[in-house]
């Protein structure tokens, strides 16, 4: 199969790559571009570990083809911090110990960032439903919800 040439923007940088027509964006990010922050937990859009933001929309990158990124904006976990300055969500996840094994964390951070962009002052219930597409098996979600609540209040004050 011949490769597809793609020109896209990832975390603000122009990126060019060749990918197979049947290759997922997740595989492109991980295997071709070395951006392994997004994880494959299921490959079927059920776990949210591969969450990215595509043109302001939260998606599972395992359900998007690499070729579909042509001309679009991709945001991944690798672009969340500014240099050595962590995003408030990242900082609050650390402070609240909202991660144990940490493999779901990049997906949760991206989903939470998307949630707060659309709803800067969510209730606990809105947070719980907003993050219901992301699976965590370690924490029972308690500390994740608290971290997002805390980050929301910090971001509002900023």
């Amino acid at each position, binding site marked *: 199969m011949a490769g597809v040439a793609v020109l896209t923007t990832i975390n603000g940088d122009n990126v060019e790559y060749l990918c197979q027509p049947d290759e997922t964006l997740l595989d492109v990010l991980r295997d071709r571009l070395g951006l392994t922050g997004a994880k494959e937990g299921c*490959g079927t859009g059920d776990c949210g570990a591969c969450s990215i933001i595509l043109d302001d929309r939260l998606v599972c990158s395992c359900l998007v083809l690499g070729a579909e990124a042509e001309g679009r904006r991709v945001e991944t976990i690798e672009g969340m911090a500014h240099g050595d300055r962590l995003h408030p969500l990242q900082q609050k996840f650390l*402070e609240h*110990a909202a991660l144990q094994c940490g493999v779901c964390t990049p997906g949760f951070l991206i989903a939470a960032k998307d949630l707060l962009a659309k709803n800067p002052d969510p209730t606990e219930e809105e947070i719980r439903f907003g993050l219901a597409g992301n699976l965590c098996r370690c924490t029972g979600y308690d500390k994740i919800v608290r971290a997002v609540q805390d980050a929301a209040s910090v971001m509002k004050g900023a």
Partner: protein
Amino acid sequence: MNFDPRYSGRNFTSVGTRPIRPDGVDKVTGRARYGADFNMAGQLVGRVLRSPHAHATIRKIDTSKAEKLNGVKAVITAADLPDLTDGDAAMYDILDNCMARKKALYDGHAVAAVAAVDARTARQALKLIEVDYEVLPHVTDVDEAMKHTAPLLNDAIFTEGLEEKPVRPSNVTKRTQFGHGDVHEGFGQADYVVERSFKTEQTHQGYIEPHACVASVSADGTADLWVCTQGHFVYRQHCAQLLGMEASKLRVTSSEIGGGFGGKTHVWAEPVALALSRKAGRPVKLVMTRDEVFRASGPTSATSIDVRIGARKDGTITAAEATLRYSCGPYAGMWAEIGAMTAFACYRLENVRTVGYEVLVSRPKTAAYRAPSAPMAAFAVESAVDELAKEIGMDPVEFRIKNAAQEGTRSSYGPVYGPIGIGPTLEAAKNHPHMKAPLGKNQGRGMACGFWFNFGGQTCTDLNIGMDGSVSLAVGTVDVGGSRASLSLVAAEELGIAYEQVKAVVADTSSLGYNDMTDGSRGTFSSSMATISAARNAIKILRERAAQMWDIPLDDVVWEKGHAIAKGEKYGNLAALSLREIAAASGKTGGPIAGHSELVADGAGVSFATHVCDIEVDPETGATRVLRYTVVQDAGKAVHPTYVEGQYQGGAAQGIGWALNEEYIYGKDGRLQNPGFLDYRIPVCSDLPMIDTQILEIPNPNHPYGVRGVGETSIVPPLAAIANAVSNAAGVRMTHIPMSPPRILAAIEAERGG
């Protein structure tokens, strides 16, 4: 230097604080490297062909077409993994589970594997492998498998543990029995007796990261393995044995691990990846799909349990017995045995007997899952305990308090308890505001207790002090949920320095002596003991160096708050020497300063918890909602309390999923029908409330700081606590886990109809 592990009370400086974990920033920025995040130059993609049959003889495998496909570099079958187990039955089972030899024993059993230049070629190659199966009858249900009429899964198995050696083979591999006293006499003294049968379905650990490894075997016979595992030293030992290598020639590096919960304590794909790499002469990356994780790794046992408990009018239990049948998959296990040991461990009983049966079924090989076997036994026993309390007319907390085990109680599985936390957790639950909160319509409250042994095991730790006075702590227990933070706290505590001055890493198998894996809640317990020992050894050297620098006797130098101090008025003018100052001079005083420790961490203190929960049941649909959940558990000493809370909450959440929704569903064809997160639904954020925790600290006398393992006990009570709450809410006793809406509805309708 002899190490004294006994507890001695002290005021802690670092231990008990809640700093940010050392591996945290990498994990929130996507930089941390898990099993599938590692690559080697020239790496091939490995994939495994799996049996679609639950039970079948493999007559022939033809790999010739696959081998000819362009881009395929190696194809292997069981013939490429010859039997080197030398009569070790357990290792033979591991080998056979990695790659089926004569028979495929479950849907998903590996039968062949390929390594190719890319994933697409590897997938194509799998389709070109021709396997000639003779399909055999199968059995997936634990009770069905015990019947004489059931298909025999292994005709070499004769039940062990019977008084007479059986003449016919059986799917029951072993019978075990525990207890003391005279149960018959005890039931004779009872005014009330409750007798019930329970079933629990099979669940999976559900770690979000699938199994993944990269194997690289060199032509000189040495090899490297990068893998997500709970125990890289054990993986090295197993892989080396199965591949006929010397352990020292195989270096295993544990990646960051994306959850394990017992499921990453067994090799599956790793020997296959090594065999592929050996044959192809190139590195091979092998990553399981989620479908493969469900079909071929994990899961826990499905169970069938009968319980009988009798008590006098005053609430004293006079006798208790249980028969426990646990599925093991197609290979012998000791799952019912563990269930039988834990079943009544919370109680002070004069007459108790438990009998366990290990049962072979056509399902994947049972693996450990967080306090393996205990949640199911607790579900059955704690349900019956609740029912008995109700019959007597006693409050379920008071009934449990009256019968709770204490220091000096002979446990139902044999040993006599030291100081334990079952009574205090019950008292704390009784006094918790949760117990007094009002309940609404269709809402019920339930409680249950849980026990877990905890484990210590072989542990080796190195503590190296740099020339700048910073401390590198190399441990061999994989960090599954924050142990690098807790072990850094312990090193800082013992040395009297700041937490930030310590950097903990998990060392690979070539850099450190053997360590048992992170299981049995041993990570922080055992490695903190080894860290304390290593730190004390380092302190002795630090004192020696200070004595040398001052030219005074060693006995006159003491270690306090990170400094060597010359003791005695005659040394009044000597300023204390800090760890940094001694380290900076080390090149002139005898070289690098380090403390090492190799020990068997005996005396892991047993652990108890009490959980309380409120559940709402919709009587029209059988749907449930968890309204409130409280965990009370003894930690001995919480080294990093936030991560202890995290263990309590995580175990509770897994238990909630198990109790209400998770189950393996097999079709009549013996195939797993829900091998994905869509149909095997683990709890999501919107399913759960906040999970309240209360940490009790009853020091473990066998650890210098009083630490007990905390990781597993939290999954033991939830099945029963939720079953009791649902039963109270629905007005009908629930006896089958998970209590999915159809099961609850059926129970409600049967009660109405009856």
